[in-house]
Structures are given as structure tokens and as C-alpha cells.
């Protein structure tokens, strides 16, 4: 008698996902990601327009309120460009978070009818976020070409900051996805938290305008380093400090580890509770 391929026993409490199994389901991850992207962009014109319109509107509003009304310094060539770039970066994080968070509850019928490592869901949700982000980035580069800010060599560091933003969003979103199955109020609390984070992070304003007294606390937000780094790379604004970068990198790594662990802990209960 040959050895069984699978032995199914009562679920043990575990904190580490089965990465080998996850890798075996990479085709599913891609297929689900492809589906999301196809559905988003099927009515092509609308899909793209929304992705570009959002930072346009946000950039416009932020530059009026923070630039004109509050007369804050951005350190960039124009407040609009500054806010626009900030919002593109922010959307990368916020979309990664919210789509990962909604991925499990939103696909309850898959979870109760087919086996696959559930971690496939939040990860595959990242695909459409990436495509949206690339569209946003493309619109940002059009703005850059038109407005001609000086070219910086640090633009080459862009992927690093983007990766940090995605990692933070995916990590936190994965925790939320796992918890939202057991605690339904997570999905109601999340939009509020994301909205708060938007104003608690340097999206609409520069880190430099934050009063010295609370700047230390401000830098503890791992988003600060990533957002500042992103704009430093694109617009040549003030670079984040080494400490700030270290906090961001640590935060991103912790978010991913924490997300994977919490998810692994709850994964096997999902089909029973959903």
C-alpha cells in the first residue's frame, strides 16, 4: 500500500501557512487576479477613467484646502502635483488593504464549495490593485512630462517604496480578512480606520509641516516613510530619514508576517463560520 497523498485530521492550531501548498495553487491566484482585472476594465473607458479621476479630484481638493486655504508648504513644484503623487501612492496602500480585507467574505461561495489555500484570496486581490496603481502611475508620469519637474536619479528607487506600500496594505488587509469572518464588525470599522489613516499620514501635506512636538509620534506610522520616499523618488521632495525608513521596512515585514500568521490561525474555521 502506497502512502496517502493527503491525511486529513482535526485542525491543529497553527500560525504558519503552508507555503508549498500556496505555491501549488499559483495558477488559481493568477486566474482570480486576472478575473478581477478583466471585470474592472471590461468597460475599458470607465475603468481607466475612474482610476485617473480619483487622484485628480483628491489632488485638486487637497491643493485647494491644504495649499491655498491652510497655505502649507509642500516642498514640491506645485501643490497639486504633490497631492496627486501622494494620493496615487496612498491608493496603492489603501486598495491593497481594502480589497484583501474584503476578499474572503466576498467570495464565500468559493470558500464553501472548493478547497484551496484561503490565503490565495487576499493575495490575488493584489493583482487588480497593482493594475490600478500602474494606471495611476502612468497618469502621474503624463503630468510629470507636462509639468517638467527636474529629473532625479532617485526615481530608480520607486519600486522599493511601492513594494513597501503594497506590503503594508496586504499585511494589514490579510489580518482584517481573517478577522472579518469571525467578527463581522471589522468590515464596518475598516472604512473608518482607512479614512483616519489618510489624514494621519503625509498624503495631503508634507511631513515637514508637522509640528516638531508630535513629529516623533508621526514618524512611528510606517506609512510615513513609504509615502515620503515615494514622493522623494518621483518629485525630489525631502527624503525620509533613515530612522523613518527603518520603521517603514520593519512595519512592512511585520505586517506580512502578522497577516500570514493570523490568517493561518483562522483559515480552517472559515468555511464553518462564513
Amino acid at each position, binding site marked *: *500500500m*502506497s502512502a*496517502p*497523498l*493527503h*491525511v*486529513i*485530521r*482535526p*485542525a491543529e492550531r497553527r500560525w504558519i501557512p503552508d507555503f508549498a501548498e500556496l505555491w501549488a495553487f499559483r*495558477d*488559481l491566484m*493568477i*486566474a*482570480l487576479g*486576472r*478575473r478581477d482585472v*478583466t*471585470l474592472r476594465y*471590461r468597460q475599458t473607458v470607465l475603468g481607466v477613467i475612474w482610476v485617473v479621476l480619483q487622484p485628480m479630484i483628491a489632488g485638486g481638493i487637497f491643493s485647494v484646502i491644504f495649499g491655498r486655504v491652510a497655505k502649507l508648504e509642500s516642498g514640491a513644484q506645485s501643490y497639486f502635483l504633490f497631492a496627486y503623487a501622494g494620493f496615487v501612492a496612498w491608493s496603492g496602500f489603501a486598495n491593497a488593504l481594502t480589497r484583501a480585507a474584503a476578499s474572503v467574505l466576498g467570495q464565500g*461561495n*468559493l*470558500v*464553501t*464549495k*472548493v*478547497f*484551496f489555500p484561503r490565503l490565495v484570496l487576499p493575495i490575488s486581490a493584489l493583482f487588480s490593485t497593482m493594475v490600478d496603481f500602474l494606471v495611476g502611475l502612468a497618469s502621474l508620469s503624463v503630468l510629470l512630462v507636462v509639468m517638467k519637474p527636474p529629473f532625479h536619479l532617485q526615481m530608480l528607487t520607486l519600486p522599493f517604496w511601492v513594494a513597501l506600500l503594497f506590503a503594508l496594505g496586504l499585511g494589514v488587509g490579510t489580518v482584517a480578512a481573517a478577522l472579518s469572518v*469571525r*467578527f*463581522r*464588525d*471589522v468590515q464596518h470599522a475598516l472604512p473608518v480606520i482607512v479614512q483616519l489613516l489618510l489624514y494621519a499620514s503625509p498624503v495631503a501635506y508634507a511631513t515637514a509641516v508637522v509640528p516638531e512636538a508630535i513629529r516623533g509620534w508621526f514618524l512611528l506610522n510606517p506609512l510615513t516613510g513609504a509615502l515620503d520616499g515615494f514622493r522623494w523618488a518621483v518629485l525630489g521632495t525631502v527624503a525620509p530619514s533613515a530612522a523613518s525608513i527603518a520603521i517603514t521596512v520593519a512595519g512592512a515585514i511585520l505586517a506580512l508576517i502578522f497577516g500570514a500568521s493570523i490568517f493561518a490561525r483562522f483559515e*480552517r474555521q472559515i*468555511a*464553518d*463560520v462564513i
Partner: protein
Amino acid sequence: MSSSVPAISIRGLSKSYRIGLENAATTFREALIRKATLAREPDTTVLWALRDVSLDVARGETVGIIGRNGAGKSTLLKLISRITWPTEGEIRLYGRIGSLLEVGTGFHPELTGRENIYLNGTILGMRRHEIARRFDEIVAFAELDRFLDTPVKRYSSGMYVRLAFAVAAHLDPEILVVDEVLAVGDAAFQRKCLGKMGEVAREQGRAVLFVSHNMLAITSLCRRAVLIEGGRVTEDAAAGSVVQSYLNSLEPIAAVSLADRSDRRGSGALRFESITVRNVTLGGGLVRSGDDIEIDLAYRSAQPTLRNVHVDMVIHGPFDEQLAQLSNTAQRGVFDRVDGTGVFRCRVPRLPLEGGAYRITCYSEVDSDVADWVIHAATLNVEPGDYFGTGRSNFEGQGHFLVAHEWTAGR
């Protein structure tokens, strides 16, 4: 094909659910309060969906799983499919497993047939290159090549089901688990799928676990069947005998009492008390196409005898359409004289109704005066059966009546 090569081996498998859990701690606030007050788990009832199940299935075997709703059949399939985890016990799977618990899982209406084939195939566990390799076969099986690039929201339900089955039929696992999915789809295509499944099991030495309420599908497809009752395996033997004892175990439909119905019309010269349906062929309460059945209408009146009594039943279809009337006046003439309290018995030989749910309205007149009239007095659940006596099932959804007929061909 040696039958001793194991495919599935299950030992002492149990699964419990805590009822009330989902209502009890689904918000953080409540969970925190419970932690803070050191309260014990709230009053939850433990429900054993499956209890101490052991089962071995060998390669090349097709095993039917039967039992009433809620007996634990679906839980067993979900455990084998690794959708949920057992509370106790162990399952060993000797090979890749493919589960078909639903038709077209993950199908998206906005995506085209082609896109859905890839999506659904991957969801069912196929690798992308496997789907690509078998793509033409799948399309040919579904007979939908002209609509490949049409969004499936424009498909008819028949086309949708055909596409979904075509993908599923090309799964290549060593172990295939199929839940009640053959209840949909058109007859010809169902037969094609059943044929394909049987072929898969016999010729390629796969193991198939097959849950169905369609006893004919079970007996025609499976040599062995397992009966699950109350979460336990109560019988594991040749399909024919397990099906028979399942049918026997179904109690006669408890008489539907009509005594308390107030939504009735008529003078009350007589009143229907209850309806009881009995399968004379099987000797139980299961109503099946092609079997002889008897319907008893118990009645009561204030008189010692009644004269000139008309009685009939109308059978309604799913849209409340009147399908047929069973009337004593038409069949034999009114009853000249009956006891004041008794039973009207209506015998229907070789029940010509398709599988499905029908409603019955009871009506009576005494001396040409409406005596009692109860609309939708009872529901008649008809199981599909072997009406034609050929060992073939009639398929649901192809009309309401089975008509005795004969085909010939000539020139």
C-alpha cells in the same frame, strides 16, 4: 483492476458544529466583554453532523451515498474535499481529489465562455496548461463552440449547465466527489455526464463518491451504496439493497391533518379530516413515478349516512396550474350512499407524474351542494422513478406527465 488498491480510507470521522456560535461572538465588542468578564462560552448546543464514520473506497469503485436531508452526506463530502476540518478521526486520500459540490463554482456572468472555462477549471484544481491541453475536448463536450466568446450571462440556463459540466467532466483526479449536481440540466446531457462519470470510474480506475436523491441514478451508476442516518453509516452494501432499505425506512407520510384548517369553504355537510398517501408498490410513504399509490381522504360528518356524494382532488403544478382532476363522478359516478364518517380512497395505478412537488386540493359535494373545499390541502412530493419499466430514469423538468408510449421507426 484490482479492487484492493485503496483510494479513500476513513476512520472514526466525526464533525461537530456549535450551534449558536455565529450569533454569539461575531463582534469584537462581545468577544472582548466575554474575555473581560471571564464568562464561559455562551450556551451553545453541540450538533454532531457526522459521528464515528469509517469507510473504505477502492480505486475503480463508484459508491453512492444516500440518506435524508441533514443526515450528514454533504458534511462527509466537505470533509473529504478539505473544505472543512473534522472534529475527530482521520481521512486518508490516496490520490488527487476533485470535488464537484456545485455546478459552475466561480462562474462569472460577465466573463465569456472561454474565460469561464479557464477560471472554473483552475478553481476545480486543474493547472492552466492542463485546461489548455483539453480545451477543445471541453468545448466539444459542451457543444457550445459558437458561443465561446459570448458572456455567459447571455447563455440559457441549459447552456450554462452544459458548460459547467463539460469542465467538471474533464477533471482528472484519482478521486472524484460529486454532490447532488445532476438534478439540473437537460436529460440528454445528464445522461452524457452520467455516462462519462461511469466510464471514468470503470476504465481509468478512479474512485467516485456520488451523493444523490435520485435512487435510479444511484442504482444505475453505483454497485455499492452507503446509507447515512443521523450522521452515522447505518448500511454499507450492494446499491440495490441499500436503496431498498432506504426507501423502506421512509415512514409513511404522516397523515396531513385537515381538521384544523379554517381556510375552507362549503356547508360542512362533510369535512375532510386528513390526507394520507401510500405507495402500494413499495409499501411505504415514498411517492415515486411509475408506482401504484393510494390517497386516503378521511372525512367526518354529523350524519350517520350521506347520500349522493361527489368527491374530487385537483393536482396543481409549480405555478399553481391545474394539471389534473381525480373525480369520482367522472370515473364511476357519485357515491349513492356512504357512511357518515369514513375514508374515500383513490387509487392511482402507475403514477404518471414526473418527479417534483405538486399540491392537492380536495373538494366534495353532498346532494350537489358544496360540502367541503380545501385548497392546497397537502403537498405531494414525487420522486423520479422507473415509469417505463426499462431501468431508466425519467428526468425532472421535462414536463409534468409521463405518458405511456411506444416508438417505432420505418420508412
